[in-house]
């Protein structure tokens, strides 16, 4: 029984050289993830999308059960805590969320349940497991997580402050505070759709400041991730050279 569990774990994890079963499983899962996204490219479901939904739902349900069953191997320790820790880990939570569209297949009754179909998008995160480069990027983001959160907080604070300022200085321009938040976000990211344009001098001045701050602040996460990624790559290179 224990050998079956170990073998199941080996098969569902990313494949190693020469393991035919694991490789076939990885290809099946990658295909299921990509094909499972196809219904999202259409306005209305058709007969084929329903079959795709049912088939991918069964595959993902079996995959989820197998992952929970082998959680002790994944976590590296053998007790009930391993199962709880695994179920609460980010990838397992996304796996669970991606299973929710199954409910819509059997109970397509209300529009609220219809929204569950959007949870299909979480399935794309399954691909992280099957690509070594994706794993590196995930590790890099994990390493610079605290810095990224700090920058995100800075951006959110700036968006709120500039939205409050412009909302008070140009009240005729915005119907509600959400529109001001939208304007602040579009300005700080330097996208600037131009659908909301300040007319007073002070409003235009705030817009100019937002654009300048945006150039500096929005570039920060990109630089952080690039630096950490290059660091990770050079570490890997030196490991092979040694």
């Amino acid at each position, binding site marked *: 029984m224990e050998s079956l569990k170990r073998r199941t774990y080996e098969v569902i994890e990313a494949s190693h050289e020469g393991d035919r079963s694991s490789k076939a499983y990885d290809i099946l899962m990658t295909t299921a993830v990509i094909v499972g996204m*196809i219904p999202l490219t259409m306005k209305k479901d058709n007969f084929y999308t329903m079959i795709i939904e049912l088939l991918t739902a069964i595959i993902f349900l079996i995959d989820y059960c197998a992952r929970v069953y082998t959680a002790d191997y994944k976590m590296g320790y053998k007790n009930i805590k391993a199962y709880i820790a695994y179920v609460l880990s980010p990838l397992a939570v996304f796996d669970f969320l991606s299973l929710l569209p199954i409910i819509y297949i059997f109970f397509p009754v209300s529009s609220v349940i219809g929204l569950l179909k959007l949870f299909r998008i979480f399935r794309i995160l399954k691909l992280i497991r099957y690509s070594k480069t994706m794993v590196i990027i995930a590790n890099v983001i994990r390493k610079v997580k605290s810095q990224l959160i700090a920058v995100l907080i800075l951006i959110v604070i700036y968006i709120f402050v500039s939205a409050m300022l412009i909302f008070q200085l140009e009240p005729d321009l915005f119907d509600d505070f959400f529109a001001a938040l939208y304007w602040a976000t579009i300005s700080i990211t330097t996208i600037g759709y131009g659908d909301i344009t300040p007319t007073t001098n002070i409003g235009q001045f705030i817009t100019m400041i937002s654009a300048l701050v945006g150039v500096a602040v929005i570039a920060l996460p990109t630089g952080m991730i690039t630096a950490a990624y290059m660091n990770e790559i050079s570490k890997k290179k030196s490991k092979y050279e040694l």
Partner: protein
Amino acid sequence: MPKNKKEDLLISDSGVKEDLNQRRVTAFVIICRILTIVLIILGVIAFLEGNFCLLS
């Protein structure tokens, strides 16, 4: 009295021993590949039907 151990293997008269584990691996791989192909075909048909109405 013959000694019967768990790890003893019974070899057929022809001398060919079929590895059950190998057969299971092959069956699993075939099922995975069939499902993969079915999914790809369904995906292409659904995409064409849903976006271009080529099949109806």
